[in-house]
């Protein structure tokens, strides 16, 4: 049997697929006359134009070059990682703290030291602590752009109300606590404070310098292992002081929104500070970008003070910096280096200083920027740079893992009330094990080839499919052969798309699950079943599986509600179209808006939920802040979101039930309930099965809601499987391990789906 005798549409589509596979491979390497350079930043809408202007200025100076500016304000890390995997890395890109060690340790960045002269800048012109972030031995791996230390922002209006003067620059931890106590108030006299001295998000990047200033640390300076220092009295004291702010003194609110805290969630720390509910907030220069406008408009009266120092401690701060780096894979290295040099030159920094986003890495430009600031905030930042230390995050590979371990440990004290010495002991064991693993892994990085083998999968897969199709047609006896051909013909269009964009990626991820892959490097050492073995003993994964299973229990509840609504709305009730639209709204509203509103509804003090409960005389709930109620709270939100979507499908299903059945039933004298039970439900079974199967599948894959609302917290109470997979793949750079998890999840979902189909088939034959 040859292809030519197959049905025409089928043969046509197959030949298109073949041609397409052949041609698509060739056109990627076309030569071009003008040199195009790609530069990637995380510039947001407001900053975008500024960076575009930089690119245009460079093109003016060098007309033979075309600069394409690519701005990626969210998902920056995922995008850079994917670009490395595919060999499509921009020529020049901004280097951000979390990916600094990953790229530096793998030798993927050009050493810019020999080209520093091109910037026209002497080494001494930079803040030394900022330049140090991008230095490895003798090498300079990025031209510094801007940076920030951490400061205490304080609301002067609230300070005045509490009779406090501006804090002394040399203030101590005790002073900080005194201020915080004086600023914590119960303004509406309901015996629960609604204005707080400070807030403390459980983020390592915020409390790193507090530990340093007490003489403690996370790692020992020389070994990159925790050693005694993590469990030293100095470190413990610092953690204890921070935990006490909330647990003992009650001067900080319970964590309401964990997600989005850096993005300025309305209910988060930044939002409370802007809303005048927070006296003091620890943050970096990034917060001043938006705040400055409020100060200029007189909406807020805010100043900054250095971080306080414990009595007998050492004044400390941290430096978070961004720099322009050049990828070794760039095809026009000379020009890429010229562009990076231009972007960090004094000219470029002066332009940026006119609408400042960060603190310029050049001292003289920073000084000019500080002079233009009527509120004196820039000047304090500049002075603090002198005490700045390099964050561990820029030295330690896969530091997100360390952050996760330490933040989880600290959560056990903050939320769970466990003694800090105990949780630090356990964190130490975990961290050292992790460091030992990554020391082992980092010794063998293969050079980047930009070859992902994926096309091999595609070609061999396509051959296999064609062979399978031919074989199954040929092996079918003649009278049934045309049925098979017709069936295949109808499936071909969707199969081609699925094959290329879903099935091959699926098979590739199965291949990855037997390998170790960090996404960035092209080497993928074969590790056999070791990912699955690790998975078997990974209690966090099984905890996430348990949470996911519990989470799935919301599906029947939401289906019952949505069926009820659909039954009410199927009739021609007045304004039915409007009702349907309203119930449909949550499935189309912005997910971020939904998360914001629900974080407000769940707010323990000001939220609508507790307000209603109090009105009815029921004790207030803890909602997202308590590990015991957090998962249920997220489930409620998901019921609320999915009701509209399920209602629509139920409506379409109800429309398919012939009205004659109901007429016949009415003639027989069946009441409403009988009609529902004996006509509606049985005839709706295909629809019900569809909603049940798809809702359970998507419930097993819940991600966005958790990612935005809780980030898996508190105490991993809302950590679900796909969030765990995401963390491992993109934060911990363990794509192989993440793929193994995905396949275990796949087996579970497939089994559950199979049971549902089996059960429904039995019942169909029964009726």
């Amino acid at each position, binding site marked *: 049997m040859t292809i030519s005798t197959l049905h025409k549409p089928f043969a046509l589509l197959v030949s298109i697929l073949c041609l397409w596979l052949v041609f698509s491979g060739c056109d990627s390497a076309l030569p071009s006359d003008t040199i195009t350079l790609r530069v990637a930043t*995380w510039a*947001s*809408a*407001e*900053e975008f134009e500024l960076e575009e202007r930089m690119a245009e200025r460079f093109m003016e100076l060098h007309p033979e070059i075309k600069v394409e500016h*690519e701005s990626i304000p*969210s998902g920056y890390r*995922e*995008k850079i990682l994917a670009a490395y995997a*595919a060999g499509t890395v921009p020529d020049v890109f901004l280097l951000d703290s979390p990916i600094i060690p990953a790229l530096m340790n793998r030798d993927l960045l050009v050493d810019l030291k020999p080209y520093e002269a091109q910037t026209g800048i002497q080494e001494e012109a930079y803040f030394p602590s900022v330049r140090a972030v991008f230095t490895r031995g003798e090498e300079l791996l990025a031209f510094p752009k801007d940076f920030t230390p951490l400061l205490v922002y304080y609301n002067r209006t609230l300070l005045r109300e509490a009779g406090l003067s501006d804090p002394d620059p040399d203030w101590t931890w005790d002073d900080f606590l005194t201020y915080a106590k004086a600023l914590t108030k119960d303004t509406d006299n309901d015996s629960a404070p609604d204005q707080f001295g400070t807030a403390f998000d459980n983020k390592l990047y915020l409390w790193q310098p507090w530990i340093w200033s007490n003489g403690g640390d996370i790692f020992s300076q020389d070994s990159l292992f925790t050693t005694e220092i993590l469990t030293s009295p100095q470190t413990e004291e610092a953690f204890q002081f921070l935990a006490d702010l909330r647990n003992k003194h009650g001067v900080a609110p319970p964590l309401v929104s964990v997600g989005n805290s850096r*993005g300025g969630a309305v209910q988060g720390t930044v939002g409370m500070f802007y*809303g*005048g509910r927070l006296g003091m907030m620890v943050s970096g220069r*990034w917060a001043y970008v*938006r705040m400055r406008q*409020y100060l200029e408009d007189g*909406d*807020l009266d805010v100043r900054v003070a250095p971080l306080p120092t414990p009595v007998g401690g050492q004044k400390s701060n941290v430096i978070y910096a961004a720099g322009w780096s050049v990828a070794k894979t760039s095809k026009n290295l000379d020009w890429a280096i010229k562009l990076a040099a231009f972007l960090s030159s004094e000219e470029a920094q002066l332009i940026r200083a006119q609408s400042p986003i960060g603190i310029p890495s050049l001292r003289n430009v920073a000084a000019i920027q500080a002079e233009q600031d009527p509120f004196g905030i820039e000047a304090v930042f500049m002075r603090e740079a002198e005490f700045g230390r390099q964050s561990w995050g820029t030295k330690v590979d896969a530091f997100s893992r360390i952050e996760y371990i330490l933040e989880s440990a600290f959560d056990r004290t903050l939320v769970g009330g466990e003694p800090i010495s105990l949780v630090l002991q356990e964190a130490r064991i975990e961290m050292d094990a992790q460091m030992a693993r990554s020391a082992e892994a980092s010794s063998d990085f293969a050079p980047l080839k930009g070859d*992902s083998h*994926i*096309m091999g999968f595609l070609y061999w897969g396509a051959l296999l499919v064609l062979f399978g199709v031919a074989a199954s047609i040929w092996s079918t006896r003649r009278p*049934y052969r045309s*049925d098979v051909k*017709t069936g295949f013909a*109808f*499936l071909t*269009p*969707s199969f081609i*798309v*699925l094959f290329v964009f*879903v099935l*091959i*990626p*699926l098979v*590739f*991820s199965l291949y990855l699950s037997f390998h170790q892959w960090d996404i960035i490097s092209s080497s993928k050492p074969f590790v056999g079943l070791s990912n699955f073995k690790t998975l078997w003993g990974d209690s966090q994964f099984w905890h996430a599986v348990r949470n996911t299973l519990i989470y799935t229990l919301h599906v029947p509840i939401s289906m019952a509600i949505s069926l009820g*609504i659909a039954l009410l709305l199927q009739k021609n009730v*007045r304004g039915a179209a409007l009702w349907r639209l309203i*119930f449909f709204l949550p*499935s189309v509203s912005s997910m971020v808006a939904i998360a914001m*509103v*629900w974080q*407000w509804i769940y707010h323990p003090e000001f939220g609508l939920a507790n307000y209603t409960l109090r009105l009815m005389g029921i004790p207030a709930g803890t909602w997202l802040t308590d590990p015991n109620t957090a998962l249920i709270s997220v489930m409620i939100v998901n019921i*609320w979101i999915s009701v509209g979507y399920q209602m*629509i499908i139920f*409506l379409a299903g109800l429309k398919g039930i*012939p*009205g004659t059945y109901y*007429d016949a039933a009415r003639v027989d004298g069946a009441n409403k309930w009988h009609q529902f039970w004996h006509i509606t439900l049985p005839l709706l079974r*295909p629809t019900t099965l*569809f909603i049940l199967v798809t809702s359970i599948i998507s419930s*097993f*894959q819940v*991600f966005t809601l958790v990612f935005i609302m809780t980030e898996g917290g508190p105490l991993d109470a809302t950590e679900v499987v*796909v969030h765990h997979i995401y963390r491992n793949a993109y934060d911990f750079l363990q794509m192989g391990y993440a*793929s193994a998890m*995905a396949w275990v999840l*796949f087996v579970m979902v*497939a089994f559950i*789906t199979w049971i549902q189909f089996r059960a429904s088939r039995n019942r169909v034959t029964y009726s």
Partner: protein
Amino acid sequence: MKRKNSFSWLGTVFMAFLAFTMLIPFLWMVSTSLMSEVEVYQFPPRLFPSDPQWSNYSNALTLLPFGRFFLNSIIVTSFAVLGQLFTCSMAAYAFARLRFRGRDSLFALFMSTMMVPSIVTLIPAYLIIAAFGWMNTFWALITPILTSVWGIFLLRQFFQTIPVAYEEAARLEGASDWTIYWRVILPLSKPALATLAVFAFMNTWKDFLWPLLVTSQNDMRTVEVGIAMFSSLQGTNWPFQMAAAVVVLLPILLLFLATQRYFIDGISLSGLKS
């Protein structure tokens, strides 16, 4: 037959309460889009802006090339909706109305593609697009979503409920499978096709991560990526972001209002004799 024209008293109260909670996030989006930045942070939140800033809309939509974003989204979404209506209904016809060897295993294979979380297949799919040289093109945005297993499954379930009698009548008159699919099954499935169209539109219109990954320039970006550009490490411009989000939401709502009558008035099987 006369039908009831309003809910019972209890039903109305219940529905009104539910509907109110459903409206809150949307109201929050609209009112935030009209506030000044500082007003957004008033604690407890205000439901209505004290002094509506209508200029937020024009400012947000001109700060970035939203006209271009809309054009891109419309192009991508049109192809996705038409593509999915065509490919999904064909596959669903095969799975629901045809009998051939291997049908059920193939259906299981199709279904299984829904069960692996997309965050692990994202990178491999990206690698394929890169290998094709399709970065920052409509090809990358459109081709992967020309079909959807969700849609195939949806239509299969609906096609199964259509009585065999219609098909047999056509077959007796010598109709081919294509004719039955095109002239019998599709016209009888308008509610299901309308449902699929609405969801295909919605999912494509609101997709974020894939368009973000495969596009690099503003001339290829879609509306949802545009909205995200109001957020950054320095915080979020809530009024602007919500102004853009409201405008981006409108086409979905209009489409829903336009097609929702199909959910009610779709050709009812009861009108035909079986």
